[in-house]
């Protein structure tokens, strides 16, 4: 490697880091030089930035600075020409001074985003203690208030075997979401919650998204883990229509339950193993994860820590979001109808037998 290329690699890495994190997109030459440990007088750095302007990566902003020693504030071109400082109110003409012209550079990228509030939806056959843990972790992790709506629909067991109960649960979820969105707006929070859903909760979410009664509901970034949504679910239309901002599908490489979901739960599929085929979704595989490993305390902490997959997805600009372990799903076809019919038939039979017990259990222990 040419010795002169070494610093340039560092400069490029710094630009890439800022674009990826959506932070520090605007800077002066001196500020950037300090960040990369180079002197501001370095002609090579200046040339590097000029080339970045020519390539469209950077935009040059001719701004100003108040010349008064006790002020020195940056003055935006939006207020130029300045005869008075908006901050220290010095009349430059009376003082016989002129504003200092200063060049700023602005990276052509999106700024980071914040987690403002979330809805978390659990899976079947679970009390989902992870929801409480998640809420606690996120509250501790963030230094600002970001409410987490822990949505519980009870300990669903054989309920998942029949469609009409899915619809009932999805309606309840949609109605609860609508109430939560209205409350969030009243509190001046953004109307779009971010969503984390697991297992059967992902299926309920997909039903809400396709239910015309809930067309008014819009969501921010959606994370599905251990998803039982069909791999060919039309996320692209939902993203294009603005219903959902983006989707991260966290796939478990050793997730077995999602593979058999389509045989037992009507309308589902192995999205949590195959990935989503929709082009606008982001599938990431954790090769060692089983169905609920995403929510083990240590894994949960890792996901939402700085640099964690979920944290990066929820806060970084998508344009430069390139997580490790990205999965490109192969095409997917549903299992043959004959097999599905047989297994479903068995499922309905099981439901018929155990429904009274399930109903009784829910009465005693919802």
């Amino acid at each position, binding site marked *: 490697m040419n010795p002169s290329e070494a610093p340039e690699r560092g400069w490029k890495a710094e630009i890439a880091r800022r674009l990826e994190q959506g932070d520090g997109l605007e800077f002066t030459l001196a500020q950037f030089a300090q960040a990369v440990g180079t002197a501001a007088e370095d002609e090579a750095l200046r040339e590097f930035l000029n080339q970045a302007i020519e390539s469209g990566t950077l935009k040059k902003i001719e*701004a100003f600075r108040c010349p008064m020693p006790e002020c020195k*504030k*940056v003055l*935006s071109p939006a207020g*130029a020409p300045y*005869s008075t400082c908006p901050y220290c109110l010095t009349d430059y003409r009376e003082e016989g001074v002129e504003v200092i012209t200063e060049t700023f550079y*602005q990276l052509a990228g999106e700024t980071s985003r914040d987690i403002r509030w979330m809805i978390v939806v659990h899976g079947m056959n679970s009390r989902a203690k992870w929801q409480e843990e998640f809420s606690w972790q996120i509250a501790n992790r963030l230094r*600002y208030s970001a409410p987490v709506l822990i949505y519980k629909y009870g300990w669903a067991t054989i309920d998942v075997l029949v469609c009409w109960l899915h619809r009932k649960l999805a309606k309840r979820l949609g109605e609860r979401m609508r109430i939560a969105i209205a409350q969030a707006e009243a509190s*001046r929070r953004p109307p779009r919650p971010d969503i984390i859903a697991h297992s059967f909760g992902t299926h309920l979410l997909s039903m809400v998204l396709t239910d015309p009664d809930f067309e008014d509901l819009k969501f921010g970034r959606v994370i599905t883990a251990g998803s039982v949504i069909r791999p060919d679910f039309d996320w692209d239309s939902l993203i294009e229509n603005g219903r959902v901002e983006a989707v991260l599908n966290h796939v478990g490489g050793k997730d077995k339950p999602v593979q058999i979901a389509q045989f037992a739960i009507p309308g589902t599929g192995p999205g949590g193993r195959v990935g989503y085929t929709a082009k606008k979704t982001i599938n990431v595989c954790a090769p060692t994860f089983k169905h609920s490993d995403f929510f083990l305390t240590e894994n949960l902490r890792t996901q939402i820590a700085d640099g964690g997959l979920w944290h990066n997805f929820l806060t970084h600009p998508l344009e430069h979001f390139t997580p490790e372990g990205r999965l490109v799903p192969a095409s997917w076809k549903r299992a043959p109808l004959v097999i599905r019919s047989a297994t479903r038939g068995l499922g309905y039979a099981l439901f018929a037998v155990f429904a009274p017990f399930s109903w009784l259990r829910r009465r005693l222990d919802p």
Partner: protein
Amino acid sequence: MADNQLTKAQLKQLANKIVVAQGNIFIKELLRSSGAKIGTTKDDFSNNLAAAIDADLLSQNMLEAWLAEIEGWGDQHLYLIESPVVDAANLAGGIAASPHSDALNAVTSLEFPDALQLKQITLDADSLSMVWHQNKEGWNRWRPKDFVEEEGLERYRFDAYRQRFDRSIVRYAWNFGDPYCAILIHRNTEIDHGQVFEDVRAVLTAIGCPDAPFSRIPLNQAVKIAVTKSKGTHSARFELDAGYVEVASTLADGGIDAVEPVRVVLHNVDTSKFDRAQGMLHFAAEEDGTSRRLAVQVYGSEARLRIWAQCKREDVSQILKLLWDYDSES
């Protein structure tokens, strides 16, 4: 205007009109700012303006920018007040019967007298606009004329200031369809805003409006909403009698939204708990429909804007519309 390029001969004709109508002090400012020779008489000014045009020191854009400044939009203070309780249909009669009837639809004046003087009233089916002119003095620090003098054992320093004259415009604008009016006052710090309010009120009374003090429309809510909805908020200060919170971006272009640590501070501020709010808002052409990016300081409790950039009449209307919409949100 750029589409309508004047020839140099036409530019000279326009310059001559300016020489005839405009006070010498302002033409001096025009010539000085273009770097041309100035002169002392009207003939000098006319010849020097022509020479500056020939030498490309004075362009059509420069002349138009200079005239636009006279028009008095932008780089000024703006107060938002409630509309007078009067039937707009009766205003024409009121103006005709008033001592200001000669100002109705008068041509744009290039005169700037020492005292605030009503120069023009424009009334149509949709709006009432009144324009006052005043010549206001200012002083520019002028170091070449500094000197030091010794008298006996003492040494004296004399700092020189060169007299400057600002063409100050005051405007009252009322679009009948809007639930507010605006009083726009030139930036000159020597202008007594209270006196301007009295003068405007006197004229309004004379043309048939009720004689009542102006009722300002606070813009605290507009600032509170802008910080949550607009990406262009550069600074915001929320006050109550016992304390205040202030957040700001020090970037040239990006607002608070572009600075994550500052942005998240704002998430934790319950602005509804604060009585007063002010902020530096930037209105962007793409997002807000203004002709260019414009910086506006909003002093919510004073119902006052300080528009920092020169702009167009439409920009001011658009900014007021946006702020009014923000202010109307609960």
